[in-house]
């Protein structure tokens, strides 16, 4: 019933590029996280638990 598309030619690429960029960021991030050492993960995850005299 209604027409509401307003696109100049070069903008068509943006949506596809956006998805590509995100997927790349996500996959690289996932790979890096998987490859982090267990010791490093354990040490980082315990940081909030280190007690000061408030804890």
């Amino acid at each position, binding site marked *: 019933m209604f027409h*509401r598309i307003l696109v*100049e030619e070069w903008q068509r690429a943006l949506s596809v590029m*956006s998805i590509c960029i*995100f997927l790349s960021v996500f996959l690289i991030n996932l790979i890096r996280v998987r490859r982090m050492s267990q010791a490093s*993960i354990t040490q980082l995850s315990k940081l*909030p*638990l280190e007690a000061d005299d408030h804890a």
Partner: protein
Amino acid sequence: MSIATAAPELGVKTRIEYDDAPVRQFMIASIGWGIIGMLVGVLIATQMGVWQANFKTSWLTFGRLRPLHTNAVIFAFVGNMMFAGIYYSTQRLVKARTASRLLSQIHFWGWQAIIVAAVITLPLGLTRGKEYAELIWPIDIAVALIWVIFAVNFFWTLARRNEPSLYVAIWFYIATIITVAMLYIINHLSIPTSWTHSYPIFGGVQDALVQWWYGHNAVAFFLTTPILGIMYYFLPKAAERPVYSYRLSIVHFWSLVFIYIWAGPHHLLNTSLPGWLQSLGMVFSLMLWAPSWGGMLNGLLTLRGAWDKLRTDPVLKFFAAGITFYGMATLEGPLLSIKSVNAFSHYTDWGIAHVHGAALGWNGFMAAGMFYWLAPRLWGRRLHSVAAANMHFWLGTVGILIYTAAMYVSGITQGIMLGATKEAGTVLSYPNFLDAVTSTRILMHLRALGGLMYLAGFIILAWNIWRTARGAQAVNGSIEVYVPEKPATMGLGGGFFNAPVIYTTLLLVFLSGWAALPTLPSGLSIVGLVATAMAMSMHKEFTKTSWSAWYERLLENALPFTALTTVAVFIGGLVQIIPTVMISTANNVEGMRQIPYTPLELAGRDIYIREGCYNCHSQQIRTLVGDVLRYGDYSKLGESIYDHPFQWGSKRTGPDLAREGGKYPNSWHFFHMRDPRQISPGSTMPDYPWLFRDKTEIAALPNKLAVQRRIGVPYKMMTDAEIQEACATQAGLIADDLKNAGAEVPPEREIIALISYLQKLGKSEKVTPIESMQAAAK
């Protein structure tokens, strides 16, 4: 700070006393402002059901108090709570005292001064007319300056840290600081016309996009990411166990930060916003489901083995409920971003239910949990009453449920009634807008009741913490740490100009080129993709280097990490805003171009904005059957291009006004503004007696018109005398017309200017593509 012992292999052992005074200050401020913000919320909720609660006083009307409520809750309540949490947890996570007490104090008192300025100016009607961005330009500059002081203190503390690693909560704080600064500055770009007034540089669709890019990400980076950082610190503390999955928290951070920034256009679905942007906003909003639920599950599963404590520990009770509300809100948000769902829900109370579920449930409960955990530690004394804290929890929970249930029922009722048609979709089932208002009246009373219960809970919290602190000595935390030798820093150059980043960028460019470009460049992109992959493989083979070392070092270097976060949030903003700003406005008016306002109409528009009419009335007819049948042809892009600021609105408590001009005679508006119920029985709109008493501010118009010309509105040059004459002539005609209809008022009164503006709404000229191209060439 005193040196105790020295151990060469670990560094020098030092005792550090944390600076917890700012934590106490921000916490007390958050509770105080929170109660005020909620009190204003209860008042305006009451006004929805009882119009007399507007008190016929200009500074107590819904239109002026609603911005005060939203700003108080967002920037005063959550803002101060966020600062308290950040100052407390950052010191402990990096094992260093906050870098500068002076900067902390400037930050605290500066922020409170900003809030006081907002409390004074907003009820006076001094506003920019954009939601959550209403504060006038001098206050905006103060906000930016204080934010920079906060950032300097934060990054300075990181630079002095004695813990090499950056825990994930610190990442969330970094993202908050960078992104809020970027959003706030861009959305507040304005040109002043006086010390208390300005016009935004963006107009129409551009202003709409920038506003909701900001508005949505204010939710993301002011109300979500800092609270997630607080969750990742305080929840393990309270549960006495590490976060369920640290790996998941890393994926949560990068995915959330990267996706959130793209989702703003979901606030503008089915409007004049270009279709590709609407689709982009919808798709990225749906993608938000994954990281949001990843974070929510990570939070809840941190309570593994500690669920039994929920029966007795109010802190964990608040945290568990808060995270659950986060999960519900982030399930609902993407759902509401689906175009067809949004067509039903937008402009109704469904949106109000959604934001209050998140604000009261997520922000409010996380704040309460944090305060109950902090107070005994900050004053070295047990919480005065655990029973009172539990009562607060149940009052708050039941209050939220009553509030949101009322708003869901109201929103769905409004969606059904306002969109319903009969006779094969050619006639509205409920042509009178007020049918939807009167049908939901009882729900407005329930809403006020739910809000009142929630407020009562927070008053109990204030009493409980006051009793805990009363007579107690303030206690600063301290810890013994080994100050490690400073590792070699990476620097910005090392962060970006290295093999992993360069290869990744090349892969990304070629991948995008393959997916987006026409045949030949697309083919070349595949070649580039393969060549880069081969070069990367050969590089690794010959140099035998481990690229994971770069990533590991990045996590210990705040500067390149911050730069990387900045790039992540910038990309989304640039992709959306640059094309919209660059798009040739004159070529893309969809056959209709707005006629600039006359000086009197511009003065009337400023009165409309001052009174906050946009809080209840939209000016955007969506591409939906119900909208078009009720209000007329759908709004075209060109019909608001000269509107600085745009006034599309986000909620319809009253009808849309995009085509209001000429729909009724001048006298209709006169009587309607004087007593809305005389014209529209059942209306909840306030009376506006001061508009019939106060004079229109004509003297300010020359400056205003000059600024309008500078931001691109095609006004011809006029002398001050010509402006005054134009106003007097138009006002005289309206006053004469009113007199003939039995409504006598002097022409210089504000009601005349407002009527002239309302009668101009929807008046546009038709243009052909050739005409619009000629206009662009000029």
